[in-house]
């Protein structure tokens, strides 16, 4: 077998980078008065190409490239496709909802695409410094995007808050990387996995793990590292929040899976209880806080914290089961949450004239299609069967249950009681949308354009598909889990049999 060219290993990232650069160049060469909406179309085409490139990577033999820094495997392809899908949906929503005269449109689309580069690279990286660089690429783009509505008070507030807290958390991650380098003398994940069990600097590795967990858990907005979430979501434009609440989170969860299951599986007895506590905290704090919100975006921000908790419950599962469940949840959550934010963007508009739950009164009569879609996505977020949200929770909780430890069972009980609480606030919004409209002049009827219509179709289709035929997606997640569990040798493009059986985890 001929060795795989290194460039093939990062082909989606290359395509996305080229798209981003192209967008910046076109934007700069266009006269200021010219319309720039079509730049979003270019970005969408680039993202679609990247998505195809990711799928094409399935035909490559699994292995690493660029001196063992990036990897292609079913796992990376799964998350690439997921992230490209999220970015595509966010772009399509932005296409129809950004006002035609908004400033720096070219940059907006370019930043989204650059963010996608970072997120994709984060899932592919198997070298901690590349991980760090990828994380920074994605973070810096999203910091700027969060403050895109700079004329409002909340936009810059969101950006600065996100930036300061985010850099702080990234510093923790970097510190962790430094410590682990000190302990093992390498930053390559597979080598660390080999060296860590026999290392003499056990305490150092544990400290490094803790530091890295802080950094990653901040990115997935798990409690107690969640305080930035509601403010940032409230201030950032809704399409950006759709991206922000799913894309970087999916990438960060991929990293978390890599760190705990691939790099330091031997420290299971350290990270498992930690993640258990974080999962319980996130669910409970997120749901209880969401109950009291009046602002729709803040409510969904707290609910996203709770969903991070449900996802973390999967980490109580052993090996393959947990990884597959977490991957599946990330996909299901992305579809329904981007969908909910797409509807919210359409209803409240770019300027967010209708931010409160009460503003949605009578939506189902004013705009029946949007109303029904909102209710549908909320039902999926609740986790009612035959939607993606149900199987996400189902796999996550059955993964936790599969360990049959008392901790796992307790976690499931706490989780399901939490979904009961969550039903209350999701339903409140759904019920308000279904209530008769208030007196007074009705707000303008939102228009659904072609691009956003396509995005909604994609999201509804995915949510239903994951809820009715979850088999295929779960199978993909499971093959991904197997590749993550099977150690890939450090050599370049070492062909790995795709049917490698995973070795069971051995917890100390």
């Amino acid at each position, binding site marked *: 077998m001929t060795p795989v060219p290194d460039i093939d290993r990062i082909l989606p990232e290359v395509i996305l980078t080229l798209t981003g650069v192209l967008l910046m160049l076109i934007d700069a060469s266009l006269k200021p008065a010219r319309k720039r909406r079509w730049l979003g179309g270019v970005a969408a085409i680039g993202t679609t190409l990247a998505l195809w490139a990711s799928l094409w990577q399935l035909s490559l033999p699994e292995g690493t490239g660029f001196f063992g820094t990036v990897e292609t495997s079913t796992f990376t392809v799964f998350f690439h496709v997921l992230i490209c899908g999220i970015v595509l949906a966010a772009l399509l929503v932005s296409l129809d909802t950004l006002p035609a005269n908004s400033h720096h449109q070219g940059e907006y689309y370019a930043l989204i695409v650059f963010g996608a580069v970072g997120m994709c690279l984060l899932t592919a990286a198997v070298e901690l410094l590349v991980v760090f660089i990828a994380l920074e690429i994605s973070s810096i783009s999203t910091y700027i995007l969060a403050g895109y509505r700079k004329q409002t008070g909340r936009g810059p507030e969101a950006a600065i808050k996100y930036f300061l807290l985010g850099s702080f958390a990234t510093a923790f991650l970097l510190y962790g990387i430094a410590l682990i380098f000190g302990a093992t003398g390498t930053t390559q994940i597979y080598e660390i996995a080999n060296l860590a069990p026999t290392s003499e600097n056990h305490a150092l590795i544990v400290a490094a793990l803790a530091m890295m967990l802080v950094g990653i858990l901040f990115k997935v907005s798990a409690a107690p590292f969640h305080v930035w979430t509601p403010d940032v979501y409230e201030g950032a434009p809704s399409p950006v929040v759709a991206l922000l609440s799913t894309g970087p989170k999916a990438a960060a969860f991929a990293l978390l899976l890599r760190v705990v299951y691939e790099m330091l599986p031997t420290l299971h007895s350290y990270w498992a209880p930690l993640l258990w506590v974080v999962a319980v905290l996130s669910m409970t704090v997120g749901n209880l806080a969401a109950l009291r919100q009046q602002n729709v975006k803040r409510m969904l921000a707290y609910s996203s914290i709770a969903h991070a908790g449900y996802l973390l419950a999967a980490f109580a599962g052993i090996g393959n089961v947990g990884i597959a469940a977490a991957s599946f949840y990330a996909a299901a959550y992305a579809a329904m949450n981007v969908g909910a934010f797409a509807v919210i963007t359409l209803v409240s508009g770019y300027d967010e004239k209708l931010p409160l739950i009460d503003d949605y009164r009578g939506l189902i009569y004013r705009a029946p299609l949007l109303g029904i879609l909102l209710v549908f996505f909320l039902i999926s977020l609740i986790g009612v069967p035959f939607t993606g949200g149900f199987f996400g929770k189902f796999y996550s909780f059955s993964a936790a249950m599969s360990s049959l430890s008392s901790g796992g*069972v307790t976690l499931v009980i706490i989780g399901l009681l939490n979904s009961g609480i969550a039903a*209350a606030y999701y*339903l409140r919004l759904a019920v*308000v949308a279904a209530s008769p409209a208030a007196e007074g002049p009705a707000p303008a009827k939102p228009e659904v354009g072609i691009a956003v219509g396509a995005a909604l179709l994609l999201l509804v289709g995915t949510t239903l598909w994951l809820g009715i035929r979850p*088999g295929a997606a779960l199978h993909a997640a499971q093959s991904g889990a197997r590749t993550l569990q099977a150690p890939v040798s450090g050599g370049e493009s070492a062909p790995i049999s795709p049917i490698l059986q995973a070795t069971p985890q051995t917890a100390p």
Partner: protein
Amino acid sequence: MNALDQSILTLILLVPLAGAILVALLPDRAKVPNWLALAVTLASFALTLHLPAHFVTGRQGFQFEIDRTWIADPLISYHLGVDRLSLWLVVLTGLLGPVGVLASWNAITARRKIFYSLFLVQQTAMYGVFVSLDLMVYYGFWELSLVPMAILIAMYGRKNGPKAALKFFLFTFIPSAPLLVAILWLYAKAHTFDLVNLQNYLAADPLPARALFWVALAFLVAFAVKVPVFPLHGWLGDAFSEAPVAMAMVIAGKLGLYSLLRFHVELFPAQARHIAPLMMALAVIGVLYGACLALVQRDFWKLLAFGAVSHFSLVVLAIYGLTLMGWNGAVYQILSLGIVEGAVFVLLGALDMRYATSQIAAYGGLAARLPRTASYFVIASLTMVGLPLLSGFIGEFVILSSTFAQVSRGWAVAAAVGVILSAAYMLSLVQRLFYGPESTMAATRPAPDLRFAELAALTPLVVLMLVMGVAPTYWFRTMERGSQATQASEVNGATQTPVPVHVSVRTEGQP
């Protein structure tokens, strides 16, 4: 076994669903959604009639079975089937489909598209609950049945729809969380969601009793809320007041009662025996409490809600008496109540639509103005209070006599008091609504008598009340061995010897 037998249950599930999509796609013009929904519900009712026509009486186990793998890991199978327990419940659901459409014919005037497509989704969900033999598929339909119901209560509620919808959803959704935990826990132990496999697995008694107690309790509570069993009935009053007629007639009772029988008593026989005394006590309290509260209600929806608590509690008493005869009576009474409650809902809904109030005091002397409404209402009330030769009598009689003879005389006497009270509140309702001096509202607001659609909905129900009251053997013949067979297999493991096990069971229940 012909080809249709294999796919009939899938067809029954798919026809309303396809109808829902069709209704949603077609324009909301004139009465297009109404006619389409009527055609779809009639078609699915016709399909359900295939089941009793080709049902082989006396055969063990499930019939019309289909068992395909849906998801490979964890193994969830698309496993459907009916036995004697669920057979008639499927048919009842089919019958109440067109009845519900006809009852909404004139009542629902705005946004018919949403209403009828959600109504059809609800039909699918209810069929699904009755025919699923895989716990996850069952759970799916169980949860799915909440959604259209909650949305329709919120959208079409009379006064406080949204509040009632929220209350209904939370009351029934939160207990289903422990239910899911219990199902997952069983799966982690037994590696199957299949009802039959699970039954065989549990019959071997491999699990610690303490854990099983909690698992069985989770199942029990989830179903008891849906029935509702005292003291979990808090949501029913509001739901009855607010739900559109077509939904209210299916909101309570049969889903929960069937689930109690199938997924609690049959799945966990030992735990059910253990908790039976408590359940019987709660049931008798429910019978008396519901009846007493119904006596003093001023609003007829509330009266009906507490009356329903009382009636459904009687069925619970029969289920937890754990006797064959009681179970037959229970199933028969579920059928009868489904029909009677349906008719009463259509009639009260007609009154509420015409006079826009549910305060009993506002009515009076309607019989002269609305003679057809009055006579239908009298027949339905008499069925409800258990007049001989009407269907309600058979069910109540079988339940009470089996309880008296085989379980406990005290409980039977107490429950019989509740039955007498039901005569008091129903007949006084008839009197206050239709007879006595004509109220000012009835005199000043001329209203038309029952329309064609309402008559078309009510007539088959009333005919059935009579037929089921006169010729109950037709139904008992198919049901009787059903309960016997399931109990035999449950007590003797998988063996097929039909032994008179109720002798040993009934001593358990005796105080």
